């Protein structure tokens, strides 16, 4: 499988954010997108997810399902957690599993992020890091080839960061792809890097 991004451009609120972006990402590879505040990292991820319109360019997931957009084969982990405070931890996860269609089961997914003991607690009582981990459980629960992670380590404590890195390695090992926006290291050994900048982009 290969994510191909050709000549992508982004205009938001009337301003050019980036233009002429090209990269390919193969199965088992991770790409870390870096750049200063406002460079367009989050915008790029949202564009791949299909959440904002492409101003120009083309995005294809070669080898993926023919009748689905790249966004429909991707998981998006943004700054917002998409959790409902009045539902319990397992109800929250169960909903997204139902909506995205099947998966490995609630128990193992919660276990993978260390939330199994809290399964029946309403999400309102979770701390920021715990909420984040519940979001990550979604990625584990429903297999989708492409993970789009926006500053995935934020709000996570040390142990959770290690656990996340392990999950990401597992995903890559089974042929998945990761595009992550980050300001620092995210725990992968040698990811490719895409630097968004004022003077255009560099693929490192």
């Amino acid at each position, binding site marked *: 499988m290969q994510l191909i991004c050709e000549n992508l451009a982004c205009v938001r*609120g*009337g*301003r050019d954010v980036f233009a002429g972006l090209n990269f390919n990402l193969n199965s088992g590879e991770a790409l870390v997108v870096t750049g*200063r505040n406002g460079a367009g990292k989050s915008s790029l991820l949202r564009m791949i997810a299909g959440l904002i319109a492409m101003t120009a360019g083309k995005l294809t997931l070669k080898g993926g399902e023919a009748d689905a957009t790249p966004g429909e084969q991707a998981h998006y982990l943004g700054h917002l957690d998409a959790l409902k405070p009045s539902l319990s931890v397992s109800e929250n996860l169960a909903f997204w599993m139902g909506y995205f269609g099947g998966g490995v089961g609630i128990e193992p997914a919660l276990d993978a992020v260390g939330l199994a003991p809290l399964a029946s607690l309403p999400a309102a009582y979770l701390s920021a890091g715990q909420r984040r981990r519940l979001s990550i459980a979604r990625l584990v629960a429903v297999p989708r080839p492409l993970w789009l992670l926006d500053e995935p380590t934020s709000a996570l404590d040390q142990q959770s960061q290690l656990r996340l890195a392990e999950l990401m390695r597992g995903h890559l090992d089974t042929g998945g792809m990761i595009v992550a926006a980050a300001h620092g290291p995210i725990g992968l050994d040698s990811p490719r890097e895409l630097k968004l900048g*004022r003077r255009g982009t560099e693929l490192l």
Partner: protein
Amino acid sequence: MAVIDLANPTRFINFVNRALPWFAAATAIAFAFGLVLTMNAPDDYQQGATVKIMYIHVPTAWLSMMCWGVMSVAALGTLVWRHPLADVAGKAAAPIGTAFTFICLITGSLWGRPTWGTYWVWDARLTSMLVLFLLYLGMLALYWTAEDPGRGSRAAAILALVGAINIPIIKFSVEYWNTLHQPASLFRKGGSAIDPSILWPLLIMALAFTLLFFTLHFAAMRNEILRRRVRTMQMMQAQELAGAQT
């Protein structure tokens, strides 16, 4: 110049700069001509001189409906082709359509008082015009509320199309409603057989109002394009200043 060329905002502004004086002049001439004919038109045997109100009332009624049509076409341009000029055309049309609908309502009421003895009856045609006015006001409210022009235009386009589907339904239902429980028969339509001596002034006035509509619409579109340019440049200014310091 081909029509397709006009689809570029800069070219469109150049076109408006050149064409606007001619449109304005044609409007003025048509109005002068139409008003002279209006003044000399004979009175209606039933309604007397009040029939002169018709020369404003009917053209503005027609135009207020046409204007929603313009907005619907622009809406397709916005949603299907995402064309910026279509955004601008829709936005510029809304206040003009509102104003014409308002004129139609006011002149109709002012006509109604001498002919029917009241300013307002809940007659089907009047009422559906009032609902059209409300729809226009909703449209203005939507544009007013949207702080981002692009997002506002796309929302307005949806509303314009939904409205275009709904206006016939509303008209039909209002007619049903009114014939169901007709009030004490205040409403009596007069002067239905249109005599050529009335028809001609009416047509010329309709032409004049149509020209006025396009003159205003083009001018308002130009203003809107400029307003978006200003917005872009202000954002660039903020961005550049931020860049200069990093």
